[in-house]
């Protein structure tokens, strides 16, 4: 009677615990791709095999400790070498390991087969943001953290997507095979989205491959998973999966906008237009180091507001933005930003926060300077 009660209590506790762990988001998610579901079911099968082995091994140990305790007069049998038992405890783990390796290898093979993709997206890690290039589509953009500073500094309440939200998510179609080509501009980052079962290093000088075919539309969030410097926790990944038709429309719109911007290089821009565009670019690219109010974070990130050396040297300012400063944290934006963006952001920096040089840098002049 007592034994049955103990067993029942243990059983209830066990089921309760395992259900709690599975339901509370402590477990890895099953995800929204065929591969992620395969990985999840492998993980669960192997987990339960380990649980069973644990119960058998520890059960035998604790039973023996209790049943043959010294106070009951148990005497240890001293023997050395038992070939049959040794063979059994070698062969059983071997069979279990091979049994787990076969389905795991099959899944690995699927994961590594990035061939015959419908769409190629280049994913580039930068300190501290992600850039996405839709290869062959002339569409590319930078995806920045969108969590307000007030939440980070603690003056506002944090919402559910705290540090997991961006200004522009990576938009992908459902039902199509998308190849991801991952690399980095500076240090090693890692592009990780648990629901897609992708966690791949982005290494400077190398291009890593991965792929996804998303089954369900939705928003999937992830983070950089390789410590990459001060703002490692501030460069989240957000993937927005939409129906293929919706994706095609979106892509066409982005292409159109990119073409418009390219055409904008030739025309004369007004100071107001440049300031507006410049503020936008500054906010997404420069503000994370030089701060939204241009106060910087000296000595690593110099102030731009009221920086007399900068304001006196217009050509030096342009050179710094275009070519970066070697040996410092300032990257070259020659290939990251287009001439409109570079001209606008420099115009903004030379006229905002009380900087009143009155300088206006035209995109056409910038384009000419860049092509030299």
């Amino acid at each position, binding site marked *: 009677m007592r034994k049955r009660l103990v067993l029942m209590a243990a059983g209830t506790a066990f089921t309760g615990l395992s259900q709690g762990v599975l339901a509370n988001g402590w477990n890895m998610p099953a995800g929204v791709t065929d591969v992620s579901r395969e990985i999840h079911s492998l993980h669960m099968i192997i987990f339960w095999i380990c649980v069973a082995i644990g119960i058998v091994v520890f059960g035998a140990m604790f039973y023996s400790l209790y049943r043959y305790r010294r106070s009951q007069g148990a005497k240890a049998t001293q023997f*050395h*070498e038992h*070939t049959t038992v*040794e*063979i059994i405890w*070698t062969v059983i783990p071997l069979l279990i390991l091979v049994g787990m390796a076969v389905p795991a*290898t099959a899944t690995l*093979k699927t994961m590594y087969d990035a061939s015959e993709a419908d769409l190629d997206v280049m994913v580039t890690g930068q300190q501290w943001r992600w850039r996405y290039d839709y290869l062959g589509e002339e569409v590319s953009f930078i995806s920045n953290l969108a969590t307000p500073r007030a939440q980070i500094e603690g003056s506002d309440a944090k919402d559910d997507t705290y540090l997991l939200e961006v200004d522009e998510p990576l938009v992908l179609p459902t039902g199509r095979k998308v190849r991801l080509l991952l690399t980095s501009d500076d240090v090693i980052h890692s592009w990780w989205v648990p629901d897609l079962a992708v966690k791949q290093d982005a290494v400077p000088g190398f291009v890593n491959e991965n792929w996804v075919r998303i089954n369900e539309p939705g928003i999937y969030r992830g983070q950089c998973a390789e410590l990459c410097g001060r703002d490692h926790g501030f460069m989240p990944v957000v993937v927005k999966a939409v129906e293929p038709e919706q994706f095609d429309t979106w892509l066409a719109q982005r292409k159109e906008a990119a073409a418009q911007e390219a055409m904008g290089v030739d025309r004369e821009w007004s100071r107001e237009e440049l300031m507006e565009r410049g503020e936008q670019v500054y906010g997404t690219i420069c503000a994370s180091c030089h701060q939204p109010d241009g106060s910087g974070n000296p000595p690593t990130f110099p102030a731009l507001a009221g920086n007399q050396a900068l304001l006196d040297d217009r050509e030096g300012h342009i050179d710094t933005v275009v070519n970066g400063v070697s040996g410092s944290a300032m990257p070259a934006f020659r290939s990251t930003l287009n001439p409109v963006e570079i001209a606008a952001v420099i115009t903004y920096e030379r006229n905002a926060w009380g900087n009143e040089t009155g300088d206006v840098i035209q995109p056409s002049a910038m384009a000419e300077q860049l092509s030299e």
Partner: protein
Amino acid sequence: MWNVIKSVLAAFFGVQKEARRREDFAKGRAGPFIVVGVVMGIVLVVLIALVASLAAK
């Protein structure tokens, strides 16, 4: 020779009878064990490579 191969196989597997171990140390010389060990190590690597390339097909 056959005894050397059996002992090397037992070493690969990790289980050996105490009596055989004593016999090897009493009668055997190190040379044959080393040569057979290296050769069978190579055979094992080739076998695993074959299985892997078969699985990758």
